[in-house]
């Protein structure tokens, strides 16, 4: 399992780093008075190159370990199929989705409404199905949302998005 994780991580880092190195060409070096021998391109290129070497090393390590495990005929006893993996991490995926929608709609809808909706959704996601109490989570969501708005916006004078309804 670790070997496959290493190969996948290495690949992701290598692909990301390729983009990083590609966009280094858009960095315009400073050529005016006071320029340094090492330009503003040097460090990005250094970090990018180092990352590429490390990513490839990680991939290689993963491949060697995978071959070794295959040679020893080691079976991965707890490997899950992609569908089962999505089911197992359902709460995490949904939590990230809910957080994404919260931030996306925050400025459009407004702090109080979106925070209340987010809290209701997230509280229930973090609760096992058999223990969910929708009425309590709704009450907590609305109450906490208004309380936070009063504390931060009214008491501490921190600007919070108002949205189309003005709050």
């Amino acid at each position, binding site marked *: 399992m*670790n070997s496959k*994780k290493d190969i996948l*991580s290495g690949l992701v*880092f290598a692909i990301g780093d390729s983009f*990083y190195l590609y*966009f280094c060409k858009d*960095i*315009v*070096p*400073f050529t*005016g008075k006071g*320029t*340094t*021998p*090492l330009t*503003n391109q*040097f*460090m*990005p290129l250094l*970090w*990018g190159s*180092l*990352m590429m070497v*490390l990513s490839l*090393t*990680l991939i290689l*390590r993963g491949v060697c370990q995978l071959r070794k495990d295959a040679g020893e005929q080691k079976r991965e006893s707890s490997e899950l199929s992609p569908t089962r993996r999505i089911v*197992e991490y359902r*709460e*995490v995926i949904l*939590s*990230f989705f809910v*957080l*994404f929608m*919260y*931030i996306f709609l*925050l*400025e459009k809808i407004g702090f109080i409404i979106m*925070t209340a909706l*987010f*809290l209701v959704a*997230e*509280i229930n*996601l*973090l*609760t*096992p199905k058999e223990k969910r109490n929708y009425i309590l*989570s709704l009450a*907590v969501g609305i109450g*906490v*949302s208004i309380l*936070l708005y009063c*504390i*931060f916006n009214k008491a*501490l*004078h*921190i*600007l*919070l*998005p108002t949205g189309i309804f003005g709050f």
Partner: protein
Amino acid sequence: MIQEGFLTVFSDPLTLIFIALGTIIGIIFGAIPGLTATMAIVIFLPFTYPMLATQGISTLTALYIGGISGGLISAILLNIPGTPSSVATCFDGRPMAQKGQGAKALGVAVVFSFIGTFIGIMCLMVLAPLLASVAIKFGPFEYCALSVFALSLVVTLAGKDMIKGLMSAVLGCMIATVGLAPLDSKPRFTFGNFNLNTGFKLLPVLIGIFAITEVMNYASEVNKQKKFEVDEVEIKGFGFTFQEFTGQIKNAFVSAMVGLGIGILPGIGGSVSNVLSYTVSKNTSKHPEKYGTGIIDGIVASETANNATIGGAMIPLLALGIPGDGTSAMLMGGFLIHGISVGPLIFEKSGSIVYGIFFAMLLSAFLMAVFMLLGMKWFIKILKVPKNYLLSIVVTLCVIGAIGDSNLLFDAWGVFGFGLMAYLMNKAGFSMTPLILGFLLGETVEVNLRRVSQLISTTSPFSRPLFLVFTLATISVLGYSVYGALSRHITIKSKEKREK
């Protein structure tokens, strides 16, 4: 300066109230497994925006001290460390509780947490100004070498996998290159987005990495959560005898020094110091076989060390601008928000505020001991608060914290993005500490390396002794860990050959 600092704290009733509240809230966060001192600082940072600098930073340090100390409650009563800094407290704390000595275990842990914090802060007050006075003489050569040394330490000591540690650190450095380049202000990786001109801010990065990942880790275990029973315990007096106290003085002093040393080394922190100190105490004890069966020596070692680490971690933070651990990295964000630049000039520019913070920390340590000894039964009740509600509110406060600093929704997206990245990297076995240090030190390395490239034609690096010391130290640390990794690899290979 010292007198001014003392008066800044003790003549302002609001500051005293904030310190008391911060300590109590920190203890609560530390006590509840899954909530940490770092998360407490993340969440309450926005509350400090309208405060004066001394008030705000005193509150944050009170949260830090309370948070590190609070972990002992669940460690002893539930065998679940409230924070990573209390892992070793479980080893003897829980057996003591099972033997009906829970009150004694808690009393010992609280008193020696105070002693560890006190020793750490005393050393901080002495060593930080000394180190700052030396660091003032640092030039680009020394800063460049020191930053690279700090990064190498983090990479080699922070995790088991050196390649992943290095990748994490380099990724942090790469993230730090986004924005206007230092020295010449040419845009890099901004893609025409003006929000990226100033690069990624420290707060969204830290909030995403620390807070969002904790919530998502809880989310992944929602259906596997076990219900736990909490023993009701009340401490009478200190819970242990004066003879037992005097018998632990040497153990406490050694543990404090271990904690202080670990705290000074960047990127490590209380999560390592408590375990290391426990190991040292056990190996140097006359009765090592009793460790793990329920003796106070183990608790003293763990709690003294993890609290001494607080003072230790603040030393490089204040004197050099290099945080000693993740929590002090978060504190660094707090300093910046209140307009205080950490580094060698902090004592010259903001001396009275810094000494005020020292006195605030001493007060917080004292209050921590008082609150925990007198109010333990109330803190135990807190353990029963459902985390699904708490953590959902935590996420909301994270978003508010990110937006509140700059009034830009872009920073909330930063929290989301870094949270997602950190969660996936954690699952793939990458440590986040090297990434944070890389992010913090990347610009320092670049600025000073480019300045060195200008100066090298006129100044020989061999004329800078500290530069040579740091460079040799870096080579030694990296060489030692490569040697260690190769030795382990050879040992494993020869073991496999023998088995075949």
